[in-house]
């Protein structure tokens, strides 16, 4: 899928041409080289990393909130990250920052920090409130926080300049094409770091499946674990949202598909599985969105919804016992 996605697009390449270019001894012409190395490759790599990140973040949230519907979107993390990005793009924009112009290093860090920070703040507010209510209410609280933040973002947009607005709206459609090689230097380590951080907690995550009291009875420090896991999830979801826009459905679809494929709730299996499934879905969605052979590029979010929603429905119907998952 990875290679296919590099080969096909508005300009099509043969597999051997791509492989040779990637391996660095191709004799393809300069334009083709540039398309492959500077546009296709970073975009597909971004899709791959984003999918892995969102799949992992979704899994972490589902376990921590013990809720099969938890994902970055439902819990308001996307909105939190949007607010961070909106503040950077719309409010700070006048000082000369913009996503498309290619930010300087400090600007990139600022963007990651703003969107991850926005994501983290939202996530911890939801977590704090979720201790007082039941599982269904957590989802409603997440949605309400999303709306509230959405409103704040609208107000920011209302006071913004038209061209800033356009770049924010484009951002909100979701696009993997925004990450250039220079930005990849920040994007990739942030995501790999987030995944590594989450992977450290595979064992206590398994214990959390039993419920807090049982988890504590086998020696798990639940508060500490929850804090670090949500930190990882915020970093992952926040970074992706910051660079590529709020991308829906991958976060919920990847863990469910993984559970369905492997029939287990064991995180030693589910974390790698969600990474792979998330990456696969993401690259596929990006591939479809670029409409190979066509001259249009569809909004990525439309495609992830079209792929993700049926996947969730099928996985749930086949399992037939979503309630018993947690």
């Amino acid at each position: 899928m990875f290679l296919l996605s590099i080969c096909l697009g508005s300009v099509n390449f043969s597999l051997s041409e791509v492989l040779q270019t990637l391996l660095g001894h191709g004799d393809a012409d300069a334009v083709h080289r540039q398309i492959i190395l500077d546009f296709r490759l970073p975009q597909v790599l971004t899709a791959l990393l984003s999918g892995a990140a969102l799949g992992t973040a979704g899994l972490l949230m589902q376990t921590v909130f013990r809720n099969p519907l938890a994902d970055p979107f439902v819990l308001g993390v996307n909105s939190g990250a949007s607010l961070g990005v909106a503040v950077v793009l719309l409010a700070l924009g006048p000082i000369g920052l913009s996503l498309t112009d290619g930010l300087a290093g400090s600007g990139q860090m600022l963007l990651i920090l703003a969107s991850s920070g926005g994501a983290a703040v939202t996530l911890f507010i939801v977590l704090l409130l979720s201790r007082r209510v039941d599982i269904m209410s957590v989802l409603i609280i997440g949605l309400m926080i999303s709306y509230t933040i959405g409103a704040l973002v609208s107000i920011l947009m209302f006071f913004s300049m038209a061209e800033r607005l356009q770049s924010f709206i484009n951002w909100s459609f979701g696009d993997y094409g925004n990450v250039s090689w220079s930005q990849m230097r920040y994007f990739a380590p942030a995501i790999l770091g987030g995944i590594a951080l989450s992977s450290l907690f595979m064992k206590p995550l398994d214990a959390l499946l039993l419920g807090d009291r049982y988890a504590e009875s086998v020696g798990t420090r639940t508060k500490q674990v929850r804090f670090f896991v949500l930190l990882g999830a915020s970093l992952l979801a926040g970074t992706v949202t910051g660079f590529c826009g709020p991308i829906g459905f991958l976060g919920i679809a990847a863990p469910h598909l993984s559970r369905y494929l492997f029939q287990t709730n064991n995180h030693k299996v589910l974390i790698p599985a969600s990474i792979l499934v998330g990456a696969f879905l993401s690259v596929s969605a990006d591939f479809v969105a670029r409409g190979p052979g066509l001259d249009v590029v569809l909004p990525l979010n439309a495609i992830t919804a079209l792929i993700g929603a049926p996947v969730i429905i099928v996985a749930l119907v086949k399992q037939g016992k979503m309630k018993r998952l947690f």
Partner: protein
Amino acid sequence: MGAQVKIKAKQLSIGYQHSAGETIVASGLDCSLRGGEFVCLLGPNGTGKSTLIRTLAGMQKPLAGELRLSGKAMSDIAPRERARAVSVVLTETMSSGMMDAYSLVSLGRHPYSGWFGGLTAQDCERIEWSIDAVGAKPLANRQVSELSDGERQKISIARALAQEAKLMLLDEPTAFLDLPRRVELMSILRDLAHRENLALLLSTHDLDLALRFADRLWLMTPGGDLLQGAPEALALNGQFAEVFASENLDWDASSGSFRTHPVACLKVRLEGEGIERAWTQRALERLGFGISEDDGEAAFSLKVNKDAWEVERFGLIQNFKDIESLIEWIRSVDWRE
């Protein structure tokens, strides 16, 4: 010296702390558990059995008093170390979702395994031993969500056993189980306590089974006291009756069971022997008759032979071939006249 004391509480107050103050459920509790001892915790609803169990497990802070686990203050013990010393089976069901029984039991090894939870040969041995100890070998590869209540309870206990803790606390593990399953579970647990030298505390509403199986009983009274002693001692000194007796329930010390108060005051003179007589008496008591030795006050007299029930009423004799038709007859007569 007797077996080693695993946990000891002195002047313990249990309850809940909240922003407005604290709710004390019971206070001034002195108790201890020794290795090799199977103790049943009894008490009417709402007397704080679960609160006591959670406090002893270190999952809830005591409001006052001293709690020592193997001689060390509970509050000084790190979670991992505590998990090696105490295991629990709680009333809340383990929401395990998609997990097979073996994986669930293996979570009990968390206090011993490394950062990523890899299992050593020794871990696997203990897991298999635990599953075997509760007689759940055939369940090991089944999904937990497909198990029956009784099977799931066995797996929960196996998970606690896998923790290799010398103190095990179980909160109503026999609820939702049918009688044979309850008896089976109680005898498994008692044998484990004796054989493995575990200190095992189990709360239950099953007075009858507790009386038959426990080495000692802890009785929580509605007043917040904790009475302790051998089951027989508590039955003989009347404390059992005191805690559980209510307006329409009597503790019958001679049979070791509860009886509802007779509704009617009609008496029957009953003659006969053996198992038939015993069950006939139960039927009469259930239908609201007392048993009398005296002819004069009896509404009728009943002679129980091997396969015949002979009723004499107003000088007339009626014969019944089985107890079913006798009961039918008693229910068909209007006894108020």
